[in-house]
């Protein structure tokens, strides 16, 4: 394979693509210069921080980080309202420090806190939390209605208290998780932990729609953070939850083995979008509008009746959600050869008004149901953010 003019193996090892493009014969010294130039051009992003204090909690409108660990806890029997205040004060302090690259109070691994890489720590409350806080829960703060496509497992579902730890660095995320777990366990017992990933930092520009493990561009229709529409879709105006939102978390198993049997054309028809760029089958670019009335020469709809993209959309502007999910790829279980899927996460002001109607349509008809199975399901209230001197949850607990 070695052709004249092709870069040497050593150049690939030492200098990578930049050395190859230079197109000159270079020695060790030049290789090193190339390496030095590369590292100067790409500043490390470990010290990039996302603000912690604000009207809304970080980790929702934040451009999704590469790694997320989701944790749910069950409150201990003796954890009452006063204890919840103490717990949220401690955890807010941890999050306020760690997200800014400052070790937590009594952090036994302080060096692991110095490179947050856009770390965010986001807290959520289950129904029991609100009950213990002697607050009034929104009607939607309960397990979702059952859907016939579901095969839910308790070990991936529900919980009294929820934390999302997300960062572009998995070591940083692991340390933050450890700190949160240590400071929560006096008040609550771990219930489940789920880990997910997206494309790594630097693979694409921020804001590029992720791909799921079926290879699909996934989440194209999302409302855009920073717009009035996003605020309308996501943030609640209701009582202690004003400035907060709701999270629906669904662990959706994706059967890669049966998906393997589906041809490329059928894969595109199942969603109604092209695989190469996510464009609707009626368009050219990812963000082109769906033309649901378009028909082919035979008079059949170009985007089939069963296509996911058709089934997921609604004419009612309220029936929309903001998706911010992660892929998962865990060790196979029970003799299988893969265990993959998506931690589907959607934020919306009102679960019943926005998420449930959408999910009902998908339950009734969505070809993707052939290869996907929801195996975990949780709903949490995500309280608003806080200012310096305050703590997350104070609107409920004070």
């Amino acid at each position: 394979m070695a052709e004249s003019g092709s870069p040497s193996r050593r150049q690939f090892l030492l200098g990578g693509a930049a050395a190859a493009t230079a197109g000159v014969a270079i020695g060790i010294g030049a290789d090193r210069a190339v390496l030095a130039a590369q590292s100067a051009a790409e500043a490390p992003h470990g010290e990039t921080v996302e603000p912690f204090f604000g009207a809304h909690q970080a980790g929702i409108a934040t451009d999704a980080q590469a790694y997320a660990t989701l944790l749910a806890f069950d409150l201990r029997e003796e954890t009452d309202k006063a204890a919840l205040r103490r717990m949220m004060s401690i955890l807010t302090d941890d999050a306020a420090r760690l997200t800014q690259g400052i070790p937590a109070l009594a952090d036994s691994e302080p060096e692991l806190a110095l490179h947050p890489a856009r770390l965010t720590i986001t807290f959520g409350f289950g129904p029991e939390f609100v009950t213990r806080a002697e607050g009034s829960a929104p009607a939607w703060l309960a397990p979702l209605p059952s859907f016939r496509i579901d095969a839910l497992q308790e070990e991936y579902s529900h919980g009294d208290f929820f934390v999302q730890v997300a960062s572009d660095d998995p070591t940083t995320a692991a340390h933050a998780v450890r700190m949160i777990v240590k400071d929560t366990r006096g008040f609550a017992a771990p219930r489940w932990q789920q880990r997910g990933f997206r494309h790594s930092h630097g693979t694409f520009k921020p804001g590029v729609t992720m791909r799921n493990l079926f290879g699909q561009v996934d989440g194209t229709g999302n409302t855009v953070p920073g717009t009035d529409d996003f605020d309308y879709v996501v943030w609640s105006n209701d009582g202690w939850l004003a400035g907060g939102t709701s999270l629906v978390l669904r662990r959706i198993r994706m059967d890669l083995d049966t998906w393997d049997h589906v041809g490329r054309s059928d894969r595109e028809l199942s969603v109604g979008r092209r695989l190469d760029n996510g464009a609707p089958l009626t368009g050219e670019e990812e963000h082109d509008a769906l033309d649901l009335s378009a028909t082919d020469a035979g008079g059949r709809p170009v985007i089939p009746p069963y296509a996911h993209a058709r089934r997921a959309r609604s004419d009612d502007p309220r029936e929309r959600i903001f998706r911010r999910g992660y892929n998962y790829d865990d060790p196979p279980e029970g003799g299988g050869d893969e265990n993959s899927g998506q931690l589907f996460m959607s934020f919306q002001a009102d679960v019943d008004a926005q998420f449930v109607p959408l999910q009902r349509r998908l339950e009734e008809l969505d070809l993707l149901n052939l290869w996907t199975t929801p195996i975990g399901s949780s709903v949490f209230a995500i309280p608003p953010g806080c200012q310096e001197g305050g703590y997350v949850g104070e609107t409920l607990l004070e």
Partner: protein
Amino acid sequence: MQKNIKNTRINKLMAISVTGLALGGFALAGCSATAEEELTVTDPWVRSEAGDMTAMFGEIENTTGSDLLIDSIETEVADTVEMHEMVEDDSGNMIMQEIEGGFTIPAGETLVLEPGGDHFMFMGLHDELLAGDTVTVTVHFDEGEPLTIEATVKDFPGGNEPYGDEHDEHGGDHDSDEHGDDHDHDDSGDH
């Protein structure tokens, strides 16, 4: 930007204040102008405890221009507070003992109280100390006004502090009579 952990804590924590938590480090209530202006307390915390004894940690910076000697320490949550240091015993093990005459903080220096090192030892706790609580501690110097510190209670399983009569290896379960039942605090977190 290279960050030094200690400097980061001192400089940046000024900007972070959570009710009754980090803010407490700078709330020098009831002090004279001397203590208020010339001592900086950073990240004071006390280990949560259901037993008889616990310890306080944090940093006290002396910017008074003259040496300070801590004469005594009191808190409403314990009978007595001792000043403990870690020293090497005859076998080369680090052990904890009460310091003779109390801690001196030389002018311009910082007394660092940390697990496994110097600390304020609370003896005879009146009640269980729960994570997230705030404990008021008053530090009396040999001269001048006392310093009042608001310390946050945190769960903390580490920092075993063996006494002279223990011969087990570090990291073990220091289940000695000296410690009473304070070894229970870290196991379940179940208060």
